[in-house]
C-alpha cells in the first residue's frame, strides 16, 4: 500500500469518527461523556492526514528524507473495517441477548435517599434492592423505564463501552397488561421487600401500579 492510500485511510477514520459523533450513533457503542474526546480525535486525525497528504503532493524530497519505508503497510487495509462499520453500516446497540448477566452479592452499604420524584434507573433499583442497608425502596412508589423481556423489565447497562454490556432487570407482577416482547414501558410501582435474594439472582420483584408504553429512546443504555 502506498503512503497516499494510507493517508486517505487515516483521513477516513477521522471523518467516520466525526460522523458518528455528529449523528449520535456513537451512543450505540460508548457513553455520552466520550463525545468531546471523539470530536478532538476526529479533528486531530483529519488534520494529521491532511498535512501528510499535502506534503506528499508537494514533492518527493521530504518523503525520501524521512525514511518512508513501506514496512507492513498492507496491514493498514484493516482500517477499512471500522470505517465500514461506523460510516456505511448502521450497527445496532447491544441486544439483551448479547449482554451478560453477572450479578454478584454486593456488600451492604447506605445509599443516599431516593429522589423526590421516585424516578430511578433499573440498575439503581437492582443495586438498592440487593445492597441498601437503609432499605430506602421499602414502601416507596417508584418509576422506571426499560424494555419487556419475558415477565421482566430490563435495561442493558454499560460501564465503559458496549463490549462490557450487562443486563439489568426487575421481575414485574400485578397490573402490567399484555405487551409484546421488547416493548419499551414506563412502569410505576413498588418493590416487594425481600424479593432480591441469591435464589432470584438478586433480581427484585416490583408490584406494578401502572405500565405505559413509550417510544424506544435514542440512547438505549443505562449507566
Amino acid at each position, binding site marked *: *500500500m*502506498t503512503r*497516499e*492510500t*494510507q493517508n*486517505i*485511510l*487515516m483521513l477516513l*477514520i477521522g471523518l467516520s*469518527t466525526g460522523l*458518528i459523533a455528529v449523528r449520535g450513533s*456513537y451512543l*450505540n*457503542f*460508548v457513553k455520552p461523556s*466520550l463525545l468531546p474526546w*471523539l470530536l*478532538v*480525535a476526529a479533528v*486531530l*486525525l483529519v488534520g*494529521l*492526514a491532511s498535512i*501528510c497528504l499535502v506534503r506528499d503532493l508537494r514533492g518527493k524530497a*521530504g518523503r525520501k*528524507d*524521512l*525514511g*518512508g519505508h513501506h514496512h*507492513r*503497510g498492507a*496491514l*493498514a487495509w484493516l*482500517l*477499512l*473495517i*471500522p*470505517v*465500514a*462499520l*461506523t*460510516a*456505511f*453500516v448502521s*450497527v*445496532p*446497540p447491544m*441486544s439483551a*441477548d*448479547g449482554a*451478560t448477566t*453477572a450479578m454478584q452479592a454486593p456488600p451492604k452499604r447506605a445509599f443516599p435517599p431516593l429522589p423526590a420524584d421516585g424516578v430511578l434507573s433499573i440498575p439503581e433499583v437492582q443495586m438498592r434492592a440487593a445492597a441498601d442497608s437503609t432499605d430506602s425502596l421499602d414502601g416507596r412508589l417508584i418509576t422506571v423505564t426499560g424494555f419487556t423481556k419475558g415477565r421482566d423489565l430490563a435495561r442493558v447497562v454499560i*460501564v*465503559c*463501552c*458496549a*463490549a*462490557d*454490556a*450487562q443486563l439489568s432487570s426487575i421481575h414485574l407482577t400485578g397490573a402490567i397488561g399484555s405487551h409484546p416482547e421488547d416493548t419499551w414501558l414506563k412502569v410505576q410501582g413498588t418493590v416487594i421487600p425481600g424479593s432480591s435474594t441469591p435464589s432470584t439472582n438478586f433480581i427484585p420483584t416490583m408490584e406494578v401500579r401502572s405500565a405505559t408504553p413509550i417510544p424506544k429512546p435514542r440512547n438505549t443504555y443505562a449507566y
Partner: protein
Amino acid sequence: MTGEQMATKRRAGSMELLLVALIGLALSGSLITGVLADHDRLATAATVFCGVFVQALPFLVLGVIVSGLVAAFVTPERLERWLPSNPVLAVAAAGVGGAALPGCECGSVPVARRLFSGATAGAALTFMLSAPAINPVVLVATAVAFPGQPQMVLARCVASLATAVVMGLLWQRWGRTAWVTRTLPVHHDHDAPRFAVFTEAARHDFLQSASYLVLGAGAAAVLRSAVPQWVFGHIAGNLVVGVIVMALLAVVLALCSEADAFVAASLTMIPLLPRLVFLVVGPAVDVKLFAMQTGIFGRAFAMRFAPVTLVVATACATIVGLVVLGT
C-alpha cells in the same frame, strides 16, 4: 519499464482498490445492515468491535500525538545523558522514566533499540517494557475502564514496573549483546524540520497501532460472541486456570496498551486477578511485539527475551494481584 513507472503504477493500484472498496461499501451498506438485523450473534460481534474501537480511538490518537512530539523533541542522546551511570540505578530510573513517555508498545520497541548499547542495554529494555505499560495515558485509560476500582490502576502500575525492572536486571546479569543480530539502520536526519519529524512519527505510529487495534477489537468481538459463557464460567471458577488462560490470551490478542484495559473490563465474568495478569502481560509480550522484536533486535534475542518476559510478567502480576487485590 523503469522503477519510477512501476512505482506510479503500483500507487494507482492501491488507490483504485480503495476507491472500489468504498464504492462497494456505499452500495452494500444497507444490505449489511439488514444482515446484522437478522443475525443476533453477528450484530453482537459488530457492536463489541465498534465499542472497543470507538472507545480506544481517542486514547490512541492522544498517544500517537505525544509519541510524535517525543520523536521530534526528545533525542536518544538526551535520554542517555539523563540515565545514572550505575547500571542498577539506570535500570530503576529507566523503569520510572518510562512513565513520562506515553506511547504504544509498538513505538517503544524502536526507541529501545536506539537506546540499546553495551552499558545502557538493561536500562533500554526496562524502558521498552515500562513505557507502554505505566504511562499516564494507559493509567488514565485503566481508571476509566475500571471505574470505582482504583486498586486496579495501582496493581497494574506496580506489577508492570516490577516486570520491567526484573527483566532489565536479568539482562544485565545474563544477557549477551551477541544475541542482538540486527544492526540499526542509520538514517538519522538532523536537518529534517521538527514539525515534519513529528507528523511522520505520529502518522507511522497511528497506522501501525490502529491496524493492530482492529485485529484486537476483532478478536475481542469473536471471543464475546463465539465463546460460550460456560468457558468463562470455568475460568472464573479456577484462579490458576484463569491466570494461565488470561496470560496466553494477552499474548494472542496483541492489544494496544492504550486499549487493553477496555477489553479486560469487558470480560466481566472473569475475576480481577486474571484480568490484571492480562493487563500486565499484554504490553510486555504478545505476538505483535515478538514479531517486532525479531525484526528490530533479531531472532536470537526475541526467542529468549519474549518467553522469559511472559513468565516474569505473569509471576509479577499474580504476586502483586494477590497483595493489592486479594483473591
